[in-house]
């Protein structure tokens, strides 16, 4: 008995172990050799620890940023970063175990729905599923759920999203790709539908509709060629300007005698380092689990429709990606200044989301409303993806998150569903 109690109390409560065991299960179900199971399990364990290390780096940098921002502008400045939210939920809040099990649960619910319903979508973007598991766990935790109910509800809600989001996007995806073979598996779909709706309202129709692909764009966005460089290009000025407003007294907190501007510069770099490490951890973490489970999913649902990550649409409309990125960024900048007027937090534009979600939204806007639809829709999309994290801030700061909010719109919608619908119901009964 003592041994079992020791295992349950000390080993299975460790998220790193749980997620490694999930990987082991997937590999064993695939009848992999003993060596492959062992190496895959340890790689997953390692990935989790690398992710945690990245998260600590990000949190340290964001804590500094939060301080100088509140002293510099007397407002709460929030950096939207789903990676930071995931890291903090796993480490600071100790929700890693629940997130890992919900991640597995979402996969299972997805397979069940695809197997027995007419919606054959299998969500293949592992990273996005991890973010969804994170946000349903946070939402459930905020609503007061723990243990099995928390994991089960998160799995069902996440599993429904994993099928519903590709299904909702599919009519427009068909229009973009010209076939029905591939679906889009990216949890920013609510945002894409907002852009599509705006593009339909304000865009061009019929013969007046001109595609962005007929326009020649200048080549001037070279910094976008490198993901981390593009984050740095934004974070460095952001930290420097904020530190300048905060002044040397607050800007040098923790600097240990270093010049405060230099310290702010290095903290901005630290943020990028944190994202780099964290994403490397995510790759290691999911590198074994995702192939194992999608192999299982494909065998159980052979006629499935794979829902792939957003770059699947880029080739069909490369100009729209660039215009989507630019217009979404304009929208997020307007939102940054505009939302505090209504008492909401200042949400700083996140370049990675603006590029991938904004770019994909641009493709939707162009497909529905042509040039004008993509441009107006893009700005509205930018406003929308600034509003959602701002609405979420209340839920998150209440739980002890440091100066961060989530990014991917569907995951935020799932979390807000908990806060606005499920939590009141649970309190009423």
């Amino acid at each position, binding site marked *: 008995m003592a041994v079992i109690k020791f295992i349950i109390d000390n080993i299975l409560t460790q998220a790193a172990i749980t997620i490694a065991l999930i990987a082991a299960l997937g590999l064993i179900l695939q009848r992999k050799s003993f060596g492959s199971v062992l190496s895959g399990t340890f790689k997953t364990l390692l990935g989790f620890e690398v992710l945690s290390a990245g998260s600590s780096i990000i949190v340290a940098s964001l804590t500094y940023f939060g301080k100088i921002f509140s002293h510099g502008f007397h407002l709460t400045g929030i950096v939207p970063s789903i990676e930071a939210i995931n890291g903090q939920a796993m480490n600071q809040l100790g929700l890693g175990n629940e997130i890992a099990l919900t991640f597995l649960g979402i996969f299972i619910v997805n397979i069940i729905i695809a197997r027995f319903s007419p*919606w054959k979508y299998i969500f*293949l973007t592992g990273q996005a599923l991890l973010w969804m598991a994170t946000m349903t766990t946070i939402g459930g935790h905020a609503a007061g759920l723990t243990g099995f109910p928390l994991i089960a509800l998160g799995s069902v809600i996440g599993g429904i999203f994993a099928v519903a989001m590709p299904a*909702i996007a599919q*009519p427009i995806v*068909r229009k973009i790709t010209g076939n029905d*073979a591939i679906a889009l598996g990216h949890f920013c779909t609510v945002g894409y539908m907002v852009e599509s709706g705006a593009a339909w309202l304000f865009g061009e129709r019929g013969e007046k509709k001109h595609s962005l692909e007929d326009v020649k764009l200048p080549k001037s966005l070279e910094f976008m060629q490198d993901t981390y460089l593009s984050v740095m290009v934004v974070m460095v000025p952001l930290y420097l300007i904020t530190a300048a407003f905060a002044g040397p007294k607050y800007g040098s907190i923790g600097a240990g005698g270093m010049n405060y501007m230099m310290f702010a510069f290095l903290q901005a770099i630290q943020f990028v380092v944190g994202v780099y490490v964290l994403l490397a951890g995510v790759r290691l973490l999911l590198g074994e689990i995702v192939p194992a489970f999608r192999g299982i999913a*494909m*065998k159980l649902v052979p006629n499935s429709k794979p829902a792939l990550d957003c*770059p699947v649409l880029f080739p069909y409309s490369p100009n729209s990606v660039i215009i989507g990125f630019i217009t979404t960024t304009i929208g997020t900048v307007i939102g940054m200044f505009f939302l505090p007027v209504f008492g909401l937090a200042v949400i700083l534009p996140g370049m990675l989301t603006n590029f991938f979600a904004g770019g994909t939204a641009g493709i939707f806007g162009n497909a529905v409303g042509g040039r004008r639809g993509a441009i107006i829709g893009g700005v509205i999309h930018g406003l929308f993806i600034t509003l959602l994290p701002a609405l979420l801030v209340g839920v998150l700061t209440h739980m002890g998150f440091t100066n961060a909010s989530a990014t991917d719109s569907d995951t935020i919608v799932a979390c807000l569903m908990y806060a606005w619908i499920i939590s009141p119901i649970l309190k009423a009964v």
Partner: protein
Amino acid sequence: MFGLFKNKKDKKPVEETKVQLTDEEKNNLNNEIKSLKSALKGQSGNDKIVTLNSLGSTYEKLDDKDNAIKYYEDSLAEKEQFGDAYNALLRLYEEKRKEAAYKKDDDDIQKYVGKMDDLMSISKRVLKSNY
């Protein structure tokens, strides 16, 4: 919505439009392949890519997916770009993935899903290198 009431008339999957080829047509296509292959020798740059794509599409007409994939992949290896080869590969990988899934062939499922992942990476690279 949700694919239930979708407009199916203009978006038939590829295989449904495929017609049985007569022997004569097959012969013609095989002759075309021969002449394309001989043209390929000594070609380079854009000409080579055009020929490789033609080989890919001719094999696709013959329903020889493996050879079609081979030539399209060669085309993409010459130059990573959006276009016929990229789109055809995405389609062909998915068809092969589906075949493997029905046969419950795990290695092939992983192979073609992995290849689709590679296409996603190419997509990101091509887009970024354009700007």
